[in-house]
Every structure is written in structure tokens, then in C-alpha cells.
């Protein structure tokens, strides 16, 4: 059963055997010189031929997840810096030609379509989560292991496509919002708050565009990649990236609507 954060098997198996002959690794057979005969039927689960550095079925997944979490932490700092710049600029004034200290921050009115965009992005996050969980559904993985087609890919695919569609709708909505602002003669260079409106929405849109690329790669991977694990990794990492961009957008949206 899929949990929000699927536990990694290597973490569950921390307890190690305490027999005298055991090295304490818990992974190697007691006598290294004797081949440990595992598996059979050519399905490639021979312990002695396992890929280097592998210590559990989800070792690789855990690695990629950790990397994407740290990368997203860095990205979060990027947005935090951007938001700090927003607040500092908002609160700083300047001297006008009459030598009076003024603060002429005029909030940019947020186009109402952003509310719809936000809803689309939230929906895309929901469908992404469904796609991610489909990849980890154990019964499907078992069917795949038994050689009955590729049920995980098949069942996750529609949701992945839905996510891409909603993501595209969001980006499209953003371009409509920019166009609406242009019609109202609110351009990047118009005022300080419009700088920030565009800077924040552009930066986030670039991130989402990369995310769409990520999702497209995951979709391609569903067909191109033979190993279930690689497909899981692709979808999983794309999902965490996508969710984070959704959460970042929520913060940025609240900032633009309520804190200008």
C-alpha cells in the first residue's frame, strides 16, 4: 500500500543478525567465497550479480529522492531570497525631486484568472500524486514482476497525461494573465510592483516549464525504460518536484494577492 512517503526497504531492515560468523553487514552471505544461490529461471535476481553499491530493492530510489529533496531545498532558498527582495523593495522609499521621502509602491492588481490557474495547478498536483501512487501499487508491481504486461505504467499513464494537461493549462492561463495585464498597460517596466509581479510569475513559470519537461521525460520513460525501478524513480522525482512547485506557487500567489 502506498504511503505518502513510501518507506524504503533498506531502512526497515536496520536490525542486523548477531551470529558470531556474521560480519555485521547483514547483506553478505556469512562466507563470501561460497556463492549464495538465489533466484532462478533467469529473472536476474542473483544476489552475487547485483549491481555495485546496491543494498536494497529501493536503494536507488532513495538516492534520487534524497537528491531531489536537497535540490528542492536549494530552490526554496532561491524563492525565499526573491520574496525577501520583494518585501524590502516594497518597504523602501526614495527621494522625489522636491527632496521628500516617498514610497510610491502601487500594488499590481492580480488578474482574476490566476485563481483559476491556481485551481488547475492544485488539480494537477492531485493527479500527479495519483500517478505516483499508481507506480508504487504493490499488486501492480507484482503483476509486472510476474510478466503480465506493464500494469504500473499503464495505470499511471493517464494520470501523468492529466497532470501535463493541467500544467499546460496553468502555463497557458499565466500567459493569458500576462496578456490581460499588457492590455491594461501594466508591463514589466511599468512600476516596481509590476517588476515583481512579472519577475515572480516568470521565474515560477520557468520552473514549471522545466517541470513539464520533467513530466514529459517521465512519460517517455514509462515506455522507454524497461526497469520498473527506473520508471518509479522518474515519476517519483517528477512528482516531488511538481508538488513543490505547486506549494511554492501557493505561497507566491498568496503573496501577490494579499501582501502587495
Amino acid at each position: 500500500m502506498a504511503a505518502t512517503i513510501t518507506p524504503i526497504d533498506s531502512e526497515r531492515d536496520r536490525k542486523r543478525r548477531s551470529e558470531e560468523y556474521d560480519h555485521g553487514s547483514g547483506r553478505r552471505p556469512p562466507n563470501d567465497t561460497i556463492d549464495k544461490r538465489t533466484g532462478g529461471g533467469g529473472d536476474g535476481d542473483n544476489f552475487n550479480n547485483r549491481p555495485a553499491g546496491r543494498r536494497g530493492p529501493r536503494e536507488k530510489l532513495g538516492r534520487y529522492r534524497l537528491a531531489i529533496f536537497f535540490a528542492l531545498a536549494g530552490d526554496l532558498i532561491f524563492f525565499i531570497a526573491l520574496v525577501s527582495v520583494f518585501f524590502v523593495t516594497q518597504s523602501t522609499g526614495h527621494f522625489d525631486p522636491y527632496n521628500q521621502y516617498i514610497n510610491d509602491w502601487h500594488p499590481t492588481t492580480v488578474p482574476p484568472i490566476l485563481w483559476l490557474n491556481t485551481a488547475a495547478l492544485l488539480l494537477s498536483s492531485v493527479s500527479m500524486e495519483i500517478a505516483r501512487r499508481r507506480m508504487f501499487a504493490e499488486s501492480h508491481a507484482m503483476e509486472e514482476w510476474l510478466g503480465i504486461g506493464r500494469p504500473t505504467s499503464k495505470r499511471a499513464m493517464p494520470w501523468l497525461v492529466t497532470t501535463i494537461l493541467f500544467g499546460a493549462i496553468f502555463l497557458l492561463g499565466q500567459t493569458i494573465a500576462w496578456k490581460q495585464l499588457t492590455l491594461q498597460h501594466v508591463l514589466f517596466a511599468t512600476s516596481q510592483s509590476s517588476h515583481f509581479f512579472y519577475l515572480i510569475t516568470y521565474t515560477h513559470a520557468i520552473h514549471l516549464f522545466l517541470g513539464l519537461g520533467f513530466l514529459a521525460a517521465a512519460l517517455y520513460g514509462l515506455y522507454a525504460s524497461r526497469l520498473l525501478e527506473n520508471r518509479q524513480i522518474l515519476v517519483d522525482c517528477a512528482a516531488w518536484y511538481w508538488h513543490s512547485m505547486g506549494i511554492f506557487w501557493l505561497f507566491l500567489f498568496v503573496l501577490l494577492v494579499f501582501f502587495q
Partner: protein
Amino acid sequence: MSASTSTILNLPDQTTATMPKRNYLNNEHGLLSWLFTGDHKRIAILYLISITFFFFVGGAFAGLIRLELLTPQPDLMASDTYNKMFSMHGIVMVFLFLVPSVPATLGNFLIPIMLGTRDLAFPKINLLSWYLYLAGGTFTLAALIFGGVDTGWTFTTPLSTHYLNTNVITAATAIFIAGFSSIFTGLNFIVTIHRMRAPGMTWFRMPLFVWAHYAASVLMVLGTPVLAITIVLVALERTIGIGVFDPTKGGDPLLFQHLFWFYSHPAVYIMILPGMGVISEVVSTFSRKRVFGYTAVAFSSVAIALFGFFVWAHHMFIMGVSNYSALVFSLLTMLVAVPSAIKIFNWAFTLQKGSITFETPMLYAFAFFGLFTIGGMTGVFLGALGMDIHLTETYFIVAHFHYVMVGGMLMAFMAGIHFWWPKMTGRMYPESFSKLSAVTSFIGFNLTFMPQFILGYLGMPRRYHAYPAEYQVLNVLSTAGATVLGVGFLLPLLYLTWSLKYGAIAGNNPWQATGLEWQIQSPPLTENFTEIPIVDHEAYDYEWLAHKTEQEVTTVG
């Protein structure tokens, strides 16, 4: 102690010794096998070559700066050329040499081996980060060829955004790209350290070199994005005038300083922490003792990384931050001195009653102790509010950060390169030459930068190409020292290259060190370990090593 035990160097019998038939250097042949390699050791070598190139590029600028300052009059170059010289010196040295120096070369080479694994977590991303570094380097060279930048390496606004027509955007792009290279390296290290440790390699069995890199990697991943947004804003300011840093448009130039130093102060810890990791390994090996207070040294790395994020405003005391915040940041700055002092004291106690020998890496490590301590202590002077007002933007600052960055980091880098040279190449460097170069660079360094402390205290401002005649004596001393220092850094380039072919065959463990990297052949196999080791001993366990060596069967031929 008798003369025979004055060295721990233990080379195999040169008449019979041979290099291992198969190793990572000759596993594949041809240029493409290097350019498309995923092997962390080969990528480390690629990095070593590229950072050496940029080190000498930056060094050439330093030489020209010192040459100009030989006389009080501006007679070698025009003032704006001089501005370009020190800016390019700073940009090249900081972003293309110091930041990737130890992590990308020694760290790349050693972290997987020290952890007992076959490669970093993401070999292809590792290669990508080298290509990004090269791209950043290319942009820097382009900025240089098209006429250089003269903002100083700090890109201070409004100078960089309004008053200069040099290649600011090209240089900014270079730094933006090089930043991604360092983020990817950091991510790779973090994941490798978390996930790929050999069985039995617990967190507190890891060598301190790995701990230091872990702390530095966290800084790389969390600090560099702030630099990215800062650079984007500078570029936007120059191209479309968004006015974030422009007071006439309601912006705040001080904001740039906050953003820039929020990255660049942690960045100095990115530069120094890996060097501290090297020193831990070297001190332990040449004192034949476990590093005193292992846990304290490990946690002080993490503490430095943590505190490093809360001291940035000490670069801005005279720029109009409020007195209250200046006070707070002054206190926090003093706080950073504590974990650094913990390290220095623990290394000192490691030396105490150790069987110290004076091979080249140890000489460089001793240089590190003295110079880093001076650099760190003067940092405390500068962190004190009253002193800072007198000393900031003078040569005192220049001397301070060169004592930390060159005296600290570069000495640590040289210590590390000499220490692991036999492991990386399988050959020993000539000991007498290397001792000479260690002593030369120590003397040259002090002669260069000690007068600058005095100059700064007397009030000579930095970044000026002309100065009153009364400062000439000290400036001549400094330039003379720079010449000696230059020789001290050129010598290793020559004899290390020489040793690639003619050096003595080093054997697996010439220093009789305990690290996992010394238990495998040198140069290592591409896969590092034929069998993943099972770690059952602490780091720096010399008894374990002695026990292991006793039971080893020595084969001849």
C-alpha cells in the same frame, strides 16, 4: 628518537616494484574515454587540470597587480586596467579556483573511496558539473578577452549596474553557470555520504575529511541559489532597469549587499571547510594518532556551516546598517571563531605526544595552522565594530582574507595534493624539492601579506593603483614576497609533472595511513574496490592498521 624513524615514508623496493597493471588511468584509452567518463577519479583529474589552469590565470593577474604596486605612481597600466586586473583576479580565484579546489579534485577523488563505495551517487551529474564548470570558465575567459570586468569580484551596486560599461553580464553568466556546477557537486556529495557508505561505515567512523565536505556541500546547495537570484537581478537591472538596487527608482543598493553576502559569506566556508578536512587527515597521519576530539571536530564543521549563514552583515558595517543589527552581527561573527578555534585546538592536541614527522604534507599543514590562525584572529579584529570602521576597505582586509584563503585554503590544498599524490598517480614526488617549495611558499606568503596588514593599519585603501610614497617600502616588500610565492607555486607544477614519469613507485600505503583509500592499490582500480569493504574499526585506528599489516603476506615481484 633515532634518525631512522624520522620519516614514516615506506616505499616498496624500487628495483622490484612495478605499477599495478590495471588502474583507473590505463583502464581505457583515448581522449574521449576521459571526456565521457563517469569515473569520479578521472573527473577529479579533469578538475585538477582545469583548476590549475585557472589558478595560474588568476595568479598572473596577481603578479601584474603586485608589479603595478611596486611604485607609488601608476606607471604600468591605466587605472581602469588596474581595476580590471584585481576584478578578474578575484573572480577567477574565488569562483574558478577556491570554490572547486579541494571539493572537486580531492573530494571527488577520495569521498567514494573513503566511504568504501565504487563511485559517487550520480556519476553523470558529476561529469555534468565539470562541463558546467568549463562553461563558466569559458564565459569568464570570454569576459576577459572582450575587455574584462572592473566591478571587483563583489559586483558592488550601483557600480556594477549603472556606472560601468564592461562585460558585467558575461562575467555574471559565468558565475551563474559555475554556481550550478558547485550545486551539483554538493548534491552528489550529500547523497553519496547519506546513502552509499560501506557496511559498518557509520557516521562517526567517517574520516573528518568527509565530515568537512558534508558541511561544505550543504552550504553549496543552500547558499548558491541566493547568488543565482542576485546575479539575475543585477543582469535585469543592467538590461531593463528594474530598479531593485536603484535608489532613484525606489530600490536599495544595500539590498544587493545583503543578498550577495548571504551567499558569499557561506562561500568562504565552502572554500575553507574542505581544506580543514584535508588538515585533519594529514595531522593524524603524521602524528600517528587519532584526531583528538574527533566528534568535536566533526560537529565544529557542521557548526561552522550553520553559523556561516548568520554573519553576512559583518561585510556591511560601514554601509549604513543599523547600529543594533551591526552589534548583533558582530557578536555572531565572534561566535564563528569558536568552532574554528575548536578545530585548531584539537589539531594541536593531536600533535601533543604524537610521533610527529616532517614530510611535505605536514609542512604545509603547519603552514596552515599558523597562517589560518592569523587569518582567523584578524577576522575577529574586523568583526569588532570599532576596529572595522578603521580597517575596512584597507589592505588589512586584503591581508586578512588572503591569510585565510591562500594561507589557509591553498596551503591545505597543497598539503592534500602532496599527501594523496602517490594515491592519485601511483608515484612519489621528489621529497627535497617539495620541502623546498613548502618552505618557499611559506616565506613568500608571509613576506607578501604581512606588510599588507601594516599597510592597511596605516590606512592604505584597497583597490587603488596609486598610493602615497610613504607606503612604498612595505609595498616593495610585498611585491618581492609575491615573487617568492610565485616560485613556491610554480615549483610544484614542475616537479609534480616530472614525477608522473620519473617519480619513485609509491606502493599502496607510503604514509602508513589508516584511511580506506590507503588500503587499495595506487593508482586505484576504476571500480575502487574489487569487493566492498566491511568497516569494523574507527577512523584513524593505528592499532587496527598495525594488526592488519602484521597479518599481511608480503609478496615479492
